């Protein structure tokens, strides 16, 4: 009898304690992992939102840069963390997906290793050339890739990045067009080689080239989104150019390890969505050319799953393409 009482008491305590813990959350600083070095566009977005959200949540949100291996080091860390809400981090879709999908990468996490919390930025893909390039339109580029297959040097910002997949999508939409793919490490290297005439056409994201477009050094040819980018209002979408399936972006959102307490997730969603709607957040991200796209809960989960499926197809293709 005593044992039963004790058991009941223990259960009662546990029942009260669980929500109480969620209510107290957060009682200490929260680490926000960014899987890229300080100063990149994921890092900028993270630091802006952390600075605003920490005032609302009452505990410091510390941006921890765990760069390396195209994000894999940071995501491994995030997947391995305790799901207590004190370690969350940015996922970069589809780079996180392709890391999981490429067997060579031997990732120790998979698509089920994370709890999606909220999306912050959707940075659409863009095709661009140097201002002095003979290519004036997207059609010029595709014609060249068709008439002399494998000679147009097209740069990505890394193997199996969204830009790499985007090149494959353009090839798929235009049978006969083949690019000579050159993998460069990051947007700065791509900008240098394209302006220097070592690359004919570059695939990147809108946020990476807005300053140079405004400065007149580069010309954007097409945006890979369902609608035009407000940062590049004169540039047509791939859909307008007759390639409705060429939709690509780098999408950055916050997630935690799998198995997080739903109450904690809810709290984070409330605070972070408020922070992302804050005027200061909106202005700073727009100045940086980053398009805010808040997706919460089921919306974000759906987007995450769809991106994964799409990435699966193109990752396989990328691995089997003769000239990689």
């Amino acid at each position: 009898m005593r044992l039963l009482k004790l058991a009941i008491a223990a259960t009662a305590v546990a029942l009260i304690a669980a929500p109480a813990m969620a209510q107290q959350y957060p009682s200490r600083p929260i680490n926000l992992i960014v899987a890229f070095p300080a100063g990149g566009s994921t890092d900028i977005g993270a630091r802006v939102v952390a600075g605003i959200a920490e005032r609302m949540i009452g505990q410091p949100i510390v941006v921890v840069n765990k760069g390396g291996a195209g994000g894999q080091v940071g995501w491994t860390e995030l997947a391995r963390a305790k799901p207590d809400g004190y370690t969350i981090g940015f996922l970069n879709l589809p780079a996180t997906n392709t890391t999981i999908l490429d067997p060579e990468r031997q990732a120790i996490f998979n698509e089920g290793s994370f709890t999606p919390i909220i999306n912050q930025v959707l940075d659409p893909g863009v095709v661009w050339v140097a201002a002095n390039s003979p290519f004036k339109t997207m059609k010029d580029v595709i014609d060249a890739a068709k008439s002399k297959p494998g000679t147009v040097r097209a740069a990505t910002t890394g193997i199996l990045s969204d830009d790499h997949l985007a090149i494959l999508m353009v090839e798929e939409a235009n049978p006969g067009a083949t690019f000579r793919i050159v993998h460069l490490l990051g947007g700065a290297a791509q900008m240098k080689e394209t302006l220097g005439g070592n690359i004919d056409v570059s695939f990147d994201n809108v946020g990476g080239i807005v300053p140079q477009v405004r400065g007149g050094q580069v010309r954007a040819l097409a945006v890979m989104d369902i609608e035009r980018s407000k940062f590049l209002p004169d540039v047509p979408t791939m859909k307008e150019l007759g390639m409705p399936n060429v939709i690509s972006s780098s999408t950055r959102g916050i997630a935690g390890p799998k198995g997080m307490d739903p109450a904690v997730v809810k709290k984070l969603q409330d605070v972070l969505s408020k922070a992302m709607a804050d005027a200061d957040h909106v202005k700073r991200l727009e100045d940086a050319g980053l398009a805010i796209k808040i997706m919460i809960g089921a919306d974000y989960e759906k987007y995450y799953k769809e991106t994964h499926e799409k990435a699966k197809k193109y990752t396989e293709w990328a691995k089997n393409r003769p000239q990689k």
Partner: protein
Amino acid sequence: MVETLQHLMTGFGAALTPVNLTFALIGCILGTLIGVLPGIGPAAGTAILIPLTFQLDATGAIIMLAAIYYGAMYGGTITSVLINVPGEAASVITCLDGHAMAKNGRAGAALGIAAIGSFIGGLVATILLVVVATPLSKLALSFGPPEFFALMLVGLVLVTSLAGESLIAGVLMTVLGLLISLIGIDPVRGAPRFTFGIPELYDGLGFIPVVMGLFGIGEILATAEKPYREVIKTKLSGLIPSRDEWRRSMGAIWRGTGIGFFLGLIPGVGAIIPTFMSYIVEKRLSKHPELFGTGVIEGVAGPETANNSYANGAMVPLLTLGIPSSPTIAVLMGAFIVNGLTPGPFLFQERPDLVWAVIASFFVGNVLLLILNLPLVGLWAKILEIPYQYICAGTLLFCMIGAYSINQSVFDLWVMLGCGVIGYLLRKLNFPLAPLVLGLILGPQMEKSLRTSLEMSAGDFSIFVTRPLSASMLALAIVILVLAALQFAPKEIRDPNAD
């Protein structure tokens, strides 16, 4: 030209307001601290401080961040000279002769010449930035992956002059460095190499833990095995460079300025390569190359000048083209962007007030750094009078915190300690450490540029000889190789008993 001067004068007007002057001062002090702390390099240091600048106006924010950047470039020297621990990557080479000078009781002279060299390098590079920025940055763009590869090859061939007493030992160390640099995820194809399934190895061995281990921990072990080390007495005369040291340093400072500035124009070179290039050039030109590593002032003056000159030269591609040429500059660019400014030629037209205020603040910052550092030289040199058992414990703690703070990773601590043991053994066996470090730095860059070149040419190797710049650098590499072979061969035949 007159217009440029006018702009510059207006810039000085803005940079010398009490508020902006204070920001530059705070930046210099913070930067020096960041430089002194190993682990936290200038890139991480500036990134962490970006949110701080949200409260400031754009001009003040950029002035402060830029001051942190070149302050850190100087601060790294202090620990290199005093305790053989490079505070940041660009000061690695300074360990060789800087610390040797400290052991000879000339820490003050080493720190003094570094401060003066940095000042001259920074100042001249800023003048060049004003005068020749735009045409040169366009030229630097023609430096594509094949040229980059050829340049790295020249560097690798020049490494023979870093070999110390034995050419074979030097080559062995270079190859070891190149091999270590292959650990991690293949930069182009994404396949893990030599990682044994350990995720921490996916990004390769961290450069900073490795060099802190090889130099700092290795030094501790080597000194600790001696029963007693006399306290290094630094006489007042040791604080300032002697007339002879001045004479020898001036050439090194001018060459360091040129090397730093021109390599700064080429995006992607990074701050370490100019320092190594300068050291190698000084050693090649010296009448006493065999004395390098025993405390030769040129070996401090050249590289220290080159790294500050590089820091200013690297602003050229950022301001004229909007291309960040190193990780730290990328962070600085991020700071421009979140403050609503887009670096590039447009910025000169859009916000000339800001650009010229920032450029003027470079001049101001360089003067501030000199004023801050020269009086402190004596104080820093005093640290060496602390009995070595305390310095030793302090250095160890300092290295542990530094290695851990980069990625908050315990793994990096083991890397550093492991490299410390290796560094100790190599020292005992008389193997030179510098070629190993250069191999480590050049490895990834060479591989990347080689493979990108071949992707550009669809696998055709002729890309390296059909481009004039690349072809002439490859020819230069061959000439150097032949000369080096001639230089080493007779010596070893003449005197087979030499070490």
